[in-house]
């Protein structure tokens, strides 16, 4: 079995599981002032420190959430709670659905939302962004640091300086960037950022947001005074502890991780290029997180590729419409200007720490057969001619 879907989620690290197990019986409520509560509260605060250290910020600016989607939703919610109809949200066209679909929902109920185009590599067009900042309204920009489908990295520092020029807020969804590139919030000036644990071999159902100015933040979940009153609800104690540990481990191994992934991705790409023709590389190899490779295979449909690979014990994902039950293929690839048929035939390989070179030889070998078989069935593929 070869798992190449690490942008969807990753396996829990044994050391992280071990750390969580140690706390299985610490059932105290962190809000309680007695010893049971204090014991677990201390663990949570240490985890907050571990997360903050990894992204180089103060631990008081970190709020734990249930994961990336809640993080993204609550930051947009806070902005419109405060600015209402005087606020305008600008999001890139390649954001994660937890940004994009929330933005579309808010648009449908009358809020001022606009979408920013990207170029053929998937990078936000800065002049288009700047044009849209020329407004009387208070603007919040939301651009992800690394894209989940292609791995493209955005120049957040540059976007931030444009935002500052116009007095706009800036949020960055950093879920796919955390642990795959250096993220230093001392250097990247953002107002908000979103993180998730299960993309870096931590547990699921836990994430965090960075808030530069916590006085300015409006909670999404109202209730008790947990997380300084910014996110009510009894803490996911084991999740938080696991997330903290996962950050600590990846921080130590970040450079070897980047090196290993880059090397593996290079091998995978070489293998595919040398064995399969009529492909299109949708990932900008010079400017992307090192574990992600998105490739389109001409003349074949992605869901069929994915399910044939599944039968061979290989897990990947696809930008085809059929996999999601929708009619439109990947919004990211379409925004980059790719033809729908190329988007329908796209496969995302996302590598993780458990993958080896042998895994990739196996994948290339099977993939070669799968593509050849599907192209023989294909009504639109003729040898050498492409689509």
């Amino acid at each position: 079995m070869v798992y190449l879907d690490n942008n969807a989620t990753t396996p829990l690290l044994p050391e992280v599981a071990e750390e969580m197990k140690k706390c299985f019986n610490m059932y105290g409520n962190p809000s309680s002032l007695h010893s049971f509560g204090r014991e677990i509260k201390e663990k949570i605060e240490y985890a907050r420190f571990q997360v903050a250290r990894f992204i180089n910020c103060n631990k008081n600016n970190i709020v734990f959430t249930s994961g990336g989607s809640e993080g993204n939703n609550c930051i947009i919610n806070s902005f419109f709670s405060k600015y209402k109809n005087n606020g305008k949200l600008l999001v890139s066209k390649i954001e994660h659905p937890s940004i994009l679909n929330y933005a579309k929902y808010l648009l449908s109920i009358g809020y001022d939302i606009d979408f920013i185009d990207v170029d053929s590599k998937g990078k936000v067009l800065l002049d288009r962004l700047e044009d849209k900042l020329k407004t009387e309204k208070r603007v919040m920009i939301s651009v992800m640091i690394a894209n989940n489908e292609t791995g493209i990295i955005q120049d957040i520092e540059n976007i931030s300086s444009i935002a500052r020029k116009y007095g706009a807020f800036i949020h960055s969804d950093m879920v796919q960037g955390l642990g795959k590139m250096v993220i230093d919030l001392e250097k990247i000036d953002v107002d908000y950022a979103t993180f998730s644990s299960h993309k870096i071999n931590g547990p699921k159902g836990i994430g965090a947001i960075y808030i530069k100015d916590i006085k300015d933040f409006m909670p999404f979940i109202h209730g008790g005074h947990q997380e300084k009153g910014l996110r009510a609800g009894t803490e996911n104690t084991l999740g938080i502890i696991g997330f903290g540990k996962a950050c600590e481990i990846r921080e130590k191994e970040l450079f070897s991780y980047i090196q290993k992934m880059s090397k593996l991705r290079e091998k995978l790409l070489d293998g595919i290029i040398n064995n399969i023709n009529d492909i299109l590389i949708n990932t900008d190899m010079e400017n992307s997180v090192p574990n992600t490779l998105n490739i389109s295979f001409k003349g074949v449909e992605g869901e069929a590729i994915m399910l044939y690979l599944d039968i061979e014990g290989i897990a990947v994902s696809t930008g085809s419409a059929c996999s999601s039950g929708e009619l439109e293929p990947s919004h990211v690839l379409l925004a980059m200007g790719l033809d729908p048929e190329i988007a329908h035939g796209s496969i995302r390989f996302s590598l993780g720490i458990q993958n080896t070179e042998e895994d990739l030889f196996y994948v290339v070998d099977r993939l070669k057969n799968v593509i050849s078989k599907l192209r023989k069935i294909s009504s639109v593929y003729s040898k050498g001619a492409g689509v």
Partner: protein
Amino acid sequence: MSNWVYSDIVKDHFINPRNVLYDESSFDYDAKGEIGNVKCGDQMIMYIKVRDNVIVDCKWRTYGCASAIASTSMLSEAVKGMGLKEAYNIKPQDIAKRLGGLPENKIHCSVLGDRALKEAIKDYIKKNGMDINMLIEEREEIICKCLNITDKDIKEAVLGGADTYEKLQEMTKIGTVCGQCKEITIDVMNKFLNK
């Protein structure tokens, strides 16, 4: 592997698709039907061989997902030995049933095969100068609700010489009560008049 996303029959037809036409020049087909669009993520070509109005062989190629591949494979098996009319009236639901069911959002992928088949049959009918009406199932449908007059009644009147709405009314009294069915009656009549 347990709990595959589709039924075992779908999986079998997906892994071992039947009647794929790997080489067009190797198959002496009588008619061909093409449907779909790669832009929408699916495209299908179906080829049939016909003897005495019976489909004796059926082959296909597709650019499509697992459901499209499996349902077309199943369809290509099912129509062999079937009369043109029966094959023309196969419904995607019949194929889904034979496959042991398909997820609801996948039914639209499975209609591709039967739409391509319909095109192929129509192509055959056209090439051989046959009457397209032979494919239409004679299911009686009440057109005039006041007087219970069906499409079959209209067809008989047309065969009996009714070539205008007035003549049809004279012969059948259709639409002489509330008159709301006039438009549809004219449509049905024109269909039988080959207009």
